[in-house]
């Protein structure tokens, strides 16, 4: 019993320990710059946008799915918000209306994704890859392929560029969203159902969980969070462009899988994903401080993913003896049907 508790302890605090270790190395390498308050803030600031996106995509991944459309959705929502604000004369009300419309645009995309994926039983990868392409085109149309400046009103620029008590606002937004996601995943019925559907679709269906409805809501949430981060991003850059968040889905996925969430679904946590994001953030920051050009970051990220997931897979095989599909396909063709009327 004692031994098991110890291994549980290590398992539980493995990610923070790794993060601390990496930070310690950075402190030794860059003792002057790295451990300063401002540098810590800049790390958090750098991860705040995709940190907010994580809070949405984690639902799709916990289901055993994926959402590749978050980047273009963010760009589209940013554009919708900025255009609404400009169109309504840059007043305070226009900011509220703009944000609401931006979020709605995102949620609509999520609803389409969710309905198609859940009700046709088709691979989330292909559907969200397609909507990624489609929404990218829509965002280009919306912006007319121009960069739309959004320097005012201050109530809008405050979201992305302002500071509260010396801390940039996007960090608060990420923090609040992380907390909210933590509560939803751990304290609400919906959260329990997400884990249940991701962990065993058939058992969940036979326990009375409306599998398709839960899965649709997850994709809506994913797009909603992407939309929010897109609005923050537009405010941060004080402009809206169609390519604003291109490729962000890779960073978000990296953080989630490095944080120990399995792409097979049913396993993982938002805390883990946060550590994944911070780990990548700290490494990027450290490399920048040491003068490694940012162009190498993809290389480092790739290596981190392989190391993190390989150790996870290895540990899981060793500890539980659970025969899980290692190919990200917990539900092979036909399997998901058994429990539901088809």
């Amino acid at each position: 019993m004692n031994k098991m508790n110890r291994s549980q302890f290590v398992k539980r605090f493995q990610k923070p320990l790794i993060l601390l270790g990496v930070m310690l190395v950075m402190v030794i390498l860059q003792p002057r710059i790295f451990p300063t308050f401002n540098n810590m803030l800049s790390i958090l600031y750098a991860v705040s946008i995709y940190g907010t996106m994580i809070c949405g995509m984690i639902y799709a991944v916990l289901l055993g799915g994926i959402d590749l459309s978050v980047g273009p959705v963010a760009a589209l929502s940013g554009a919708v918000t900025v255009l609404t604000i400009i169109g309504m004369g840059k007043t305070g009300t226009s900011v509220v209306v703009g944000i609401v419309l931006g979020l709605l645009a995102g949620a609509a995309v999520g609803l389409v994704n969710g309905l198609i994926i859940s009700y046709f039983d088709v691979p989330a990868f292909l559907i969200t890859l397609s909507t990624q392409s489609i929404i990218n085109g829509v965002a280009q149309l919306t912006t007319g392929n121009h960069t739309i400046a959004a320097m005012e009103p201050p109530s809008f620029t405050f979201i992305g560029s302002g500071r509260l008590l010396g801390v940039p606002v996007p960090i608060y937004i990420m923090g609040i969203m992380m907390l909210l996601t933590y509560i939803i995943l751990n304290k609400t019925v919906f959260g329990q159902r997400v884990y249940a559907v991701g962990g065993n679709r058939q058992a969940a269906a036979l326990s009375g969980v409306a599998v398709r409805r839960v899965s649709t809501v997850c994709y809506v949430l994913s797009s909603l969070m992407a939309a929010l981060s897109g609005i923050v991003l537009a405010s941060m850059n004080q402009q809206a462009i169609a390519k604003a968040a291109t490729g962000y889905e890779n960073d978000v996925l990296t953080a989630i899988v490095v944080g120990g969430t399995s792409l097979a679904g049913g396993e993982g946590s938002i805390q883990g994903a946060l550590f994944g994001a911070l780990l990548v953030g700290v490494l990027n920051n450290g490399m920048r401080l040491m003068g490694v050009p940012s162009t190498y970051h993809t290389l480092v990220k790739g290596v981190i993913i392989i190391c993190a997931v390989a150790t996870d897979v290895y540990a899981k095989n060793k500890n539980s003896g659970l025969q899980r599909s290692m190919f990200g396909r917990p539900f092979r063709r036909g399997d998901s049907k058994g429990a539901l009327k088809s």
Partner: protein
Amino acid sequence: MSDQVLLRAENIHKSFSGVQVLKGVNLEIRSGEVHALMGENGAGKSTLIKIIMGVYPKDEGTIWIQGKQAEINSRSDAQRLGLAVIYQELSLIPTLTVMQNILLGQETRRCGLLDSKTMTRRVLELMERFDLYLDPGEVVENLSIAQQQTVEILKSLTVDAPLIIMDEPTASLSASESERLFDIINRLRDKGVGILYITHRLEEVRLLADRLTVLRDGENVAVVEKKDYDPQKIIRMMIGKDIATSADRVAMHRPGGPVGLSVRGLTRRGVFENVSFDAHHGEILGIGGLVGSGRTEVLRTIFGADRADAGEITLDGEKIGGTVAGNIKKGFGLIPEDRRGQGFIPLQSIRKNIALTNYDLLSNALGIVNSGRESRMCDDAISNLAVRPNIPSMPVINLSGGNQQKVVVGKWMARDLRVLLVDEPTAGIDVGVKEAIYQILEGLAAKGVIVIVVSSDLQELLRVSTRILVMRKGRIFREFNEGFITQEDVLAAASGIDNSREADHE
């Protein structure tokens, strides 16, 4: 040819974690014979097959294949020696053609390319030799299950002097398809193939088998020649007592309580037809029958997991709809047969698994879970059901089979349950825990819950049921509701010897 011994297994012993499953079993199969292997669930048939096929290592004993002593350590060893199993669940490659499946792993090549002409010829020759014709170019997934079985049989015939083991091959076949299979088996026998035929259906044994080995509790009871075949005697051999003593006879009761669940004309086309019965408060209604007789499907349809094509279900006079969530609210619960695949969420903790069906009781209007109540519910369930280890945060996958089942039961116990549908309550569970599960079911019934139990284990069925329905080929075939009955009676009804109720000449 016909007296050549293909396989001889002598004195096979096997135990799992201290429990002796096989205690010196002998088996001999000659070429050109259909050898039936019978025995109740748990008699050790499947363990014996797995040892022959190299899935499990044997503890003791010897196996000779065509007179040579053989060490079989893996399925590929078994395959090389000409042994093949045809399981109920087929193991073909669905998107490849008949020819590709038959010759998978033994393709003919010329200059590195597949020589499809020669391969087609080989397959056609094989089909001709055994009189089994299929289109070699047809894709396997387009075939019926019976045709797919034929492909598996052909695949196992590519070796010399083959021995084919068939494990309940007719379970998922229709009557006409079964007849076609019997035809194939007879032809294979004529060509000198040895067939080990495992079944519960005495009727099939009478039709097919040249000899019959009966196992009971991991021991040989007898080897019966075709001329000595007597169904009543064989049933007695399987069950183990020559004359049923009063201890083996279990009293059935006409239900005393009021009718609770009433099923009328329930039909799911092609699966079961016109199933009607009443279940009363406070009784445990057992449903017996062979695998594939439609029992599981009836339970699933009552629960709302499958759609009924016709029929009506009422609970205490109130009509029952067809959704799982709605039925759970009305007090239904289902414990599925496939525990690992449908019963629980493997990586989730005991607490989350028990809470999963009960969030209507554990959350407020906003959908926020009251974790205190969740913990208490879980602690109650763990202590009531004596789940071991009693750690609420333990992932259910790490528990033993019996404790996993207790967790699955636990998620329904915490509710205001009115009907509990149980499919194979103790499949794969240690003997010690079985009794605990029976007592839980009896406790529920005593509280007025309607418990419906489907089981293939006759001993279990008689142990828990106060009344038994026997299903056969998608219909309710017999009801035992009074007097004393024995396992023999149920088995006879299920396997179709007892024709007193239906003029069914099969």
